[in-house]
């Protein structure tokens, strides 16, 4: 279950600031891409424009040819795009299991039911499946607010997975993690991508990780597309290296 995502000429301004400057990108169905760029380059804004959190001033977002530009967030989720957040956005009082059962219920449009009781038994199985997939089964009964940072990020991704998305957007899945944890996380993300066969786009700062897993890399700077291509091309691209002066050292030292 996968789809092709195409954004064309996306423009978004906030007062005098151009957060998205005529962005045109194409993500092939089933691909695994990374979006990189210095802080403030507009990566999260791009995600927000795709998922409906922000409405573009101009431009279109096409999902398998279907125009979803300007639709509200809930509608875009139903269309098949799900997202995980830079700072894990969870339901603090719900346990991992409850959160996922709820997400599954929501995906199956059962939220309006008044005469049955939560949790619906048919949703529990799928929730447990997803927990297995991301490796959170051991923490099933843990309250979200008390999870470790890494587990919170995993739960965030799991919630998005419960939407059975055709396109999954991960905003800095390894943010706030130590080196080993980051490797584990991105490996898990890659396995998820293989298993679920969806189009996966992730924002990342660690070049090591990007070059290890991404099939293609899109570089943003000042809200515009600076370069795109296979990891090796990008690595060697002088403009990209210049943009990352300082940050590039981490990638180069690997």
């Amino acid at each position, binding site marked *: 279950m996968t789809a092709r995502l195409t954004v064309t000429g996306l423009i978004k301004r906030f007062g005098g600031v151009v957060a998205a400057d005529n962005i045109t990108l194409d993500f092939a169905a089933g691909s695994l891409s990374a979006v990189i760029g210095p802080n403030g380059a507009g990566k999260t804004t791009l995600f927000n424009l795709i998922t409906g959190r922000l409405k573009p001033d101009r431009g279109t977002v096409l999902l398998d040819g279907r125009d979803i530009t300007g639709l509200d967030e809930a509608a875009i989720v139903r269309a098949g795009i799900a*997202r995980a957040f830079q700072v894990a956005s*969870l339901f603090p009082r*719900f346990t991992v299991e409850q959160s996922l059962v*709820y997400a599954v219920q929501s995906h199956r449009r059962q939220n309006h039911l008044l005469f049955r009781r*939560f949790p619906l038994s048919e949703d529990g199985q799928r929730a447990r499946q997803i927990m297995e997939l991301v490796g959170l089964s051991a923490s099933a009964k843990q309250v979200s607010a008390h999870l470790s940072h890494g587990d919170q990020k995993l739960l965030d991704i799991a919630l998005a997975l419960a939407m059975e998305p055709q396109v999954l957007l991960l905003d800095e899945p390894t943010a706030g993690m130590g080196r080993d944890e980051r490797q584990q996380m991105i490996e898990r993300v890659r396995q998820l991508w293989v298993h679920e066969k969806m189009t996966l786009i992730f924002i990342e700062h660690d070049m090591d990780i990007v070059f290890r897993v991404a099939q293609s890399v899109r570089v943003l700077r000042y809200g515009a597309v600076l370069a795109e291509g296979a990891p090796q091309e990008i690595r060697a691209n002088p403009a990209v290296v210049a943009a990352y002066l300082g940050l590039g050292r981490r990638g180069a030292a690997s």
Partner: protein
Amino acid sequence: MMRRSALLEAALTAVACLAVTTLCLALGSKPLMDIVLRLAIFGLFALSLNILIGYTGLISFGHAMFFGFGAYAFGLLMQARGVSIPVAFAIAVLATAALAVVVGALCIRLTAIYFAFLTLAFQMLVHAIILGWVSLTGGDQGLRGGIPRPVFLGVNLADPRHFFVFACVVAFASIFLIRQILEAPFGYTLRVIRDNADRARALGVPVQRYKLAAFVFAGVFAAVAGILMSLYVSGAYPNFAFWTQSGDAIFMIMLGGISVFLGPIVGAAVFLLLNDTITRFTEYNGLVLGIVLLCVVLGLRAGLLDVVIRLMAGAPVRPASVTTETPV
């Protein structure tokens, strides 16, 4: 994961209702029946408000508008004659639901503080209309002429014992219905909205629609409480829709506990008890209640049942953060 059984709870509610009614009727004590009736009315009212505050995270300051509107609508319908009590009951509730849809549609799209304040303003508007439309409502004298009570299905509400049983059955049934709503997938959607409306949206939940639905449900049950009140005092008065009514309800919720289903009922009981005791010694019950409220808010930072649950879970009594309550 534990699912609380609807059947079991329905049975428990029925048994509790039976126990309370038979006990009170057997003892035949009017003061006891009075306390139970007042607890039923105010407990139900506070419980209905907690659908919004505790479960959906919507702080409404104007909930009494539905309490008052329901009471007046019912009273006026009955005074119009030719209407049976169940029919008037149903119409008054539906009318209040309509009011809730209108008010809710206007208020829900606003952020927290504006929402709170606008609900308060609407309540004062309803109150102003009640006071101002003297020819219809009797103004500040209240609805004069009492509430006619034609017998229906063999139930004679003019008889205090019949009324007592009727009120208890309605109250217990309402409490169970609220419970069912809150434990259903619908109710968990409300909780999810309270915990993180943003993420709920990212899971495909049309948040505004569910908030409006919660608002209407809450208004409907407040109206039920209002109707019971009008029957209890044989009339309807402007202060049913006054801000102090809403304030008291919030006080009760705070006292008993936001995060536990029965919290508002416990809070209502404690509040009524406190109030009755205080007024026996002094007319300055506002002063004492205010001090109690301060202690609860600043000291405990949670309601009584919240604290009990926390103690039972072995967690520290005072939470690090005020807003992260015990698990769902």
